[in-house]
Each structure stands twice: as structure tokens, then as C-alpha cells.
């Protein structure tokens, strides 16, 4: 299945070099979880602060079990704020 994988701010460097902006499209196996993708791309766990799937926040406790679905957009930020 295909998903969109987006890393922003200081996490941008963890994306593969063929990224378009802050996004890559990934072909992943069924059942892939958020936590496993974070580990696969070596994003430090403490830096994966704001984790959204299709714009909805997924709390840390649910990330190991949350299975991604075909067409999902996974977006991750380190701790950030603005105003």
C-alpha cells in the first residue's frame, strides 16, 4: 500500500533524498505502524512530538499499535510553537 510520509522543521533531514519538499510517497507493507516507520527512518523518538495521521493527532501511547491504511498521510514535527 502507499502512504504519504512527511517530516518537518528539524526532522526534514531524516527524509530520503528523493523527497519533494517535506514529503515522500512510500510503498509499505500492510500493518505498518507509526512507531515502526519512525524507527525505520531513525527519527529520534523524543523528537517525534506532534504526530498526525490525516491531520488527526495520535498520542504517544497509540503510536506502537496504530496501523496505517492505504492513502494515509503521516506527518511529524519536533516540539514547536508559534503565534
Amino acid at each position, binding site marked *: 500500500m502507499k502512504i504519504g510520509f*512527511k517530516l518537518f*522543521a*528539524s526532522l526534514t533531514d531524516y527524509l530520503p533524498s528523493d523527497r519533494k519538499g517535506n514529503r515522500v510517497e512510500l510503498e509499505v507493507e500492510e500493518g505498518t505502524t507509526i512507531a515502526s516507520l519512525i524507527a525505520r527512518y531513525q527519527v529520534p523518538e523524543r523528537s517525534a512530538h506532534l504526530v498526525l495521521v490525516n491531520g488527526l493527532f495520535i498520542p504517544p501511547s497509540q503510536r506502537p499499535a496504530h496501523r496505517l491504511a492505504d492513502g494515509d498521510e503521516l506527518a511529524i514535527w519536533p516540539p*514547536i510553537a508559534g503565534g
Partner: protein
Amino acid sequence: MGWNRKVLRVNLTQGTCKEEPLNMEWANEYLGSRGLAAKYLVSEIDPKVDPLSPDNKLIMATGPLTGTMASTGGRYTVSCKGPLTGAIACSNSGGFFGAEMKFAGWDMVIFEGKSPKPVYLFIENDKAELRDASHLWGTSCWHTEEQIKVDHQDPLIRVSSIGKAGENQVLFAVVINDLHRAAGRSGVGAVMGSKNLKAVAIRGTKGVSGIKDFPAFLKATTEAKKVLADNAVTGQGLPKFGTQVLMNVINEIGALPTRNHRDVQFEDASKISAEAMHEKRESDGKSHLVTNAACFGCTIACGRISQIDKNHFTVKNSPQYWGASGGLEYEAAWALGAANGVGDLEALQYANLLCNEQGFDPITFGATVAAAMELYEMGVLTKEQIGIDAPFGSAQALAKLAEMTAAGEGFGKELGQGSARMCAKYGHPELSMSVKKQEFPAYDSRGIQGMGLAYATSNRGACHLRGYTVASEVLGIPVKTDPLVTEGKAELVKAFQDATAVFDAAGICVFTSFAWTLADVQPQLAAACGSEWTMEKLNEVGERIWNMERQFNNAAGFTNKDDNLPPRLLTEPAKSGPAKGLVNGLDKMLPEYYQVRGWTPEGVPTPETLARLGL
């Protein structure tokens, strides 16, 4: 004691500058800056006064931590009755001007009346005098600041001034200090212009004395700075990416108001984001962002300094804009960009430079352009009326309209009235995306429900800096709440509103609250001002300030009917993203909010509430 205990009262009609003692009874109840200035204001002006008449007053005020070694202690506020809204206006700015006022020995300056000719106030420590500003009138904030330094042969003078927008009484004119810091909302610059007051220039060499317990203050401020440095947001995220890092976040969650709030996601958000500011341009191989910058005493340094592409159509024949300058911050990038569908980063920076140069608020300006573009697309406004084709997405129109507003020419005069008056004039008041005639900032309240309540009840009209529940609803600070629900938001909004009033009144930046709670501020204030400044007292002061501002607005003629949102947000569901199908649930939150506040169902503080707060 944190305060200098000294107020400068300037009567512009008579041309006099008089010293008077700070009312310490009021300082004990309202702390400083926003709170204390509001207390003076509501005590001295008729709530129904015409904001642009000589009877309105303009107050520039510092807080007890302004100018001290407390991190971010460089803030000052400009307060008056606001011409855009008719409500109490209080705009807060960083930079270095506020600290300089404190160093000169003053807590606040109160301007009253109207000068018969353009003047500026020059303060050099205890000495204060009005000087002729006829050679500065008609010039920009940038020119004014430089010329005053040349005239006095002192590059260390700090200047707050108005540009042409303030002189022309653009209803969202700002007061600019240190070239690109602004007391930015509600039109405080227009009030300054109505008084023929071009600038305030200060040189202070006294430093800050009178800290109550200096060893304790040194300890408290050092510990608090460590909290900021150790926090990933204030120690790393904000310095590197600035507020602009929110562009992609807010777009992703479906709360980025786009094309006058027709949409909640912008297809070109990534092109105008913090990440885009870091990327190297194809045209010249340079990144838009040059460096970050800090205001006085700030250990966060979120400010952006950027350099526009010299080859861009907006500036290729205007070398005066080629140097590094302030921007883009998130609010300006949103209002100039997503709000009107423009995804051209360089065009946004050009419009932002004009806002800083001639002194007008990019939020209200951008949002007013968005309304004009919608009216153009509906056929209500024509190319002939506007002076240029102005469909959503036109960078050319944005640039041209910014030039016209800066110069006060053509359709720029209509834009200078703000979106509420412009939309009403053309028969579509519902298209003004505003509360109390002040335009929304960069968060759509269909995707962040609590912000709808924060906007509706903000004492200075729609504003994110009066109760920034985005911190909780989106960013998880201090705790994560669900942005799509209304439950619990009344308490959340009240808590943010009251706490923010204390940060503002102290003279520090509200961005510290991404790492600090009031428990981090309290030891600093107690050491500076006295041990009686407990947590309990701070909480009470915040609530007292909020209720006092509310009372002024009620006396000015506002009612619960004004605690409202435009119909678009209440009846037109979000079209995409997580909030798809949702409108804002203000009708559920507002009655609960009044109850939590201790107000009547009509939004009036009850006698019990007023008695509890000593009002």
C-alpha cells in the same frame, strides 16, 4: 520595586510635559503595562469617546520586568480606545524601545489632547520635551527613526513612530519601533496620528534600579532562563524556525483560513512556510531567511530577518528593499498569503516590508485584501474600482494594493478602513472575517473550536494573543486537548485569557508561556516587586484586568451580541481536513463561558464577581 514610580504626562494641546508619581495603589492591583495602562485609561476617558478625537488618550507603558534581566523583559504596550473596533485597544511590542523607557526612569507616558502641528517627544532621562516634526511628517517609520538619530547625533536613541498609514489614520495603523517591531493591532497608530504625534524618541542611561531583592531576582531569572533554554520549543524550535513553523502544521490539521475563509487548507502552504524560508532559491541560490533575531533581553530569539529576491518583480527596480529586514512571521505570512490565496513568498515579504515601512498591520491588511478579492470574484467590485484585476491568488494585486494602502491612494483608502467597513459599504457585511470589526488571525475556528470562543470574547476584537488555546488544542502545551470538540473549552479559554493578562502586565513576552507557567513568572515578580506577589494574587490580577477591560467595552456600548463570529464560520462547514463538515460551536461554548466567568447570561460581570475582584 520593579517600578520607577514615575509617569510622564504629555499634553499635546498645550505642549507640556509633566512628571507625576505612579499610582502605586493601582500598580498593586494591576501590576503594570497592559493592566496598569488600562486602569489609567478607563479612569481618564469617556468610554464613548470618538477614538480619533483629542479626547481619546494614548498610553505607552512598561511593566515591572521591562528592562530587567528577566528573559524577554523588553515589552511595552500602547493603549487607547481603538479606532478599528471602538473597544479598548492594547497592543504589545518587543524590540528595545520599552527597556529604553525604563532606563530613562519612566514607567509610562500618557498622551492627551492634540498638537496643533506635527511633533515628536524626545526623552533623555529626566528631561522630556516636544519637538517639531514637520520635517518627518509624510515620511516612513524607517526614515523617521534614522533621521531622529541623525538629528540628535546619537545612534543609541530608541524610536517608536508612525508612518504614512498612521498619519492618514488608516484604521489598522501600527506604531513601529526598532524598524520592524510593532504595537500592531486595533489601530493604535491611527490614534497617534490623530494627535499629530509622529514619534517618541528615548535615550535612557540610568538602568533599572529598585529591584526589591536583587540576589533573589538574580536566582529567579537565572533559573527561569534555564527553563527556556532546556525546553525544546523555546530553546530550539522557535530560534531556528520562528513562528512560521506553524504554517504546515495548521494547514495539515485543516485550520488554515484560505481565500477569506472559504477553505481551511491552502494548496501552496508549503511554499510560504518556515521550511521554504530555509530552502535555497533557484534564482540566486540564497535562502530567504538570513538569520534569527532577539528583542531586548530575550533568550528565545524567534524573530526572522530575511532578504528578498532582488530579481522578484516587486523589487527589481527598488533597491531600497534589497537589504535584510524583518519578517516573515507566521501571522503576516498567513494574512498576506493563504488568506488571499497567494503562494509567492517574495511577494508576501514585499507586502510585509511595506507594512513595516509605512506602519500598518499585515493581519488586518491581508484579511481586508482577502475580502476585496472575494468581492471581486463575485463581481461586486471591478478592476476599474480596485485599480487592478484582483482574483484570489494574484501576487500582483497583493503588491499593488499594499503600495496603494501605504501611500493612502486609490482603492488603498478603502482598504485602510478595514474589512468590516469595506464589506458593509459594498453590501456584503457577512464577508468581513472579523469580530468587533477586527480581523481574525491565522487559525480557523472550525478546525480549532476553542479559538472561536477566544475570538468572540477577546476584549480587543478577534485576536490570538488574548487567549491562545492553539497551544493546548494543537501543540499540547501545557496539555493536549481535542481541537474538534467544544467540551471544556470555556474553562480553557478563561484560563488562557487570565494568564496572558499577567504575562502582558509583567512586561514579558507571552512566548515564554510555551515553557513557563505562572509558577515560573511568580518568583521573578516576587523578587522584583515584593513577596506579596503570590500565585493567588497573580491569578486574581489576571482576572481583574480581563473584567476591567470587559467593563470598559460594555460601557462603550458593546453587548453579548458582539461576542459573535461571522455567519460563514457558524453555518458553512469546513470543506476538507479533519474538521470537514464542522462549523464552530460557539452557541455551546458561550453560555458556559459566561457562567465560568461569573457573568450574567447577557455577558455582564455580576456584582458578586466585581466585588470579588475589587472592581
